[in-house]
């Protein structure tokens, strides 16, 4: 096993982009579901 610091540094942007991407998609889904609920649902 060899430890490759450069590979670690190269992979960090993927972590940043991945987490950012997943939260953006998630927020888009939350927004859509909230709108759908507001338009179509009745309060219990």
């Amino acid at each position, binding site marked *: *096993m*060899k*430890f*490759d*610091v450069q*590979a*670690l540094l*190269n*992979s*960090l942007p*993927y*972590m940043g*982009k*991945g*987490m950012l*991407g*997943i*939260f*953006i*998609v*998630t927020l*888009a*889904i*939350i927004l*859509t*579901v*909230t709108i*759908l*609920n507001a338009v*179509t*649902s*009745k*309060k*219990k």
Partner: protein
Amino acid sequence: MDIILDLFAPIIEQMQADPILIVKQIVMWIIGGILIYLAIKKDMEPTLLLPMGFGAILVNLPGIETVGGETVAQNGAFHTLERLFNIGIENGELMPLILFIGIGAMIDFGPLLRNPKYMLFGAAAQFGIFFTLCLSSFVGFDLNDAASIAIIGAADGPTAIFVAQTLKSSYLAAIMVAAYSYMALVPLIQPAVIKICTTKKERLIRMDDSGAREVSKVTRILFPIVVTIIVGFVAPDAVSLIGFLMFGNLIRECGVLNSLSETAQKVLANLITIFLGITIAFQMKADEFLRWETLLIMGLGLFAFIFDTFGGIMIAKIMNLFLKKKINPMIGAAGISAFPMAGRVVNKMGLAEDNQNFLLMHAIGVNVSGQVASVIAGGLILSFLA
């Protein structure tokens, strides 16, 4: 004597040609036996571990040798599994995709649709995947293999197969064994991590469902369509995964295809599961499976699971800093997918702390959000690397 020699000719020839391979194959029989034992005796993901265990024995019978990097086999089962693998997994990843129709038909997104903010837990609980991607790169795996290993943290077998196969990882079998073994170990791994990351006071937080809206049929029908479109825009490589999952869910929710929904949930899912395990075992050839990287992958997979759980719990704690009605941070742990096991584990832990603390609906809501988020995470990884 000649009859006996003829009878055992394949094994004798192989012992003469490559005695080390025979030892490795025997080790694989033992590994296969352990998988079968875990499936039957410990009830650990038996639908997959049992076929994989038997398949591991099947592809490691005598009569297989490697000549110039090419596998030459007299073992008939080897060729059959090879064909199944080529058709079902290598060319288009058909099996995991079809299985996703069944999984989609099984999932009730109702608890998530009632509390859409639960999607945030699913998103945060993918942290372990990306963290493990970095760690796997650090320990020497190339980026595609590192990403394929990291996706074990999705706690979602079909997604793990799809990503690892699309990225042409050479560690598919180890990744699959790790993914399904850890899914089976959720009831052991998660409680320990949850206890380390939360205080007793936090674990006692009760969550009520008052004020929640009823989810209309229109929302239930539009949800799978809208999610497919959103994910299709952001991560086109994941659109087949999310599309098949959501297609299954649409069949369930539309209300006019009950018979198809039932078939997808039971017959289709069972049929694919029978073939999936034994087909994946084709990758468990002694020469390819028995290497030190397999152990490393097991370790990294565990790491991904732990940090996914950690990510889900931490977002709940952060949200509690701003919310008036506090969230029990344990439900964040259910965001790792592993549906419905992670949700049940959280509910059980809640009841163990306080026998009137029913977290099941909240935990299942988070759990299904994890199912969607893990597919999105897989899709993003493919968008970056495929």
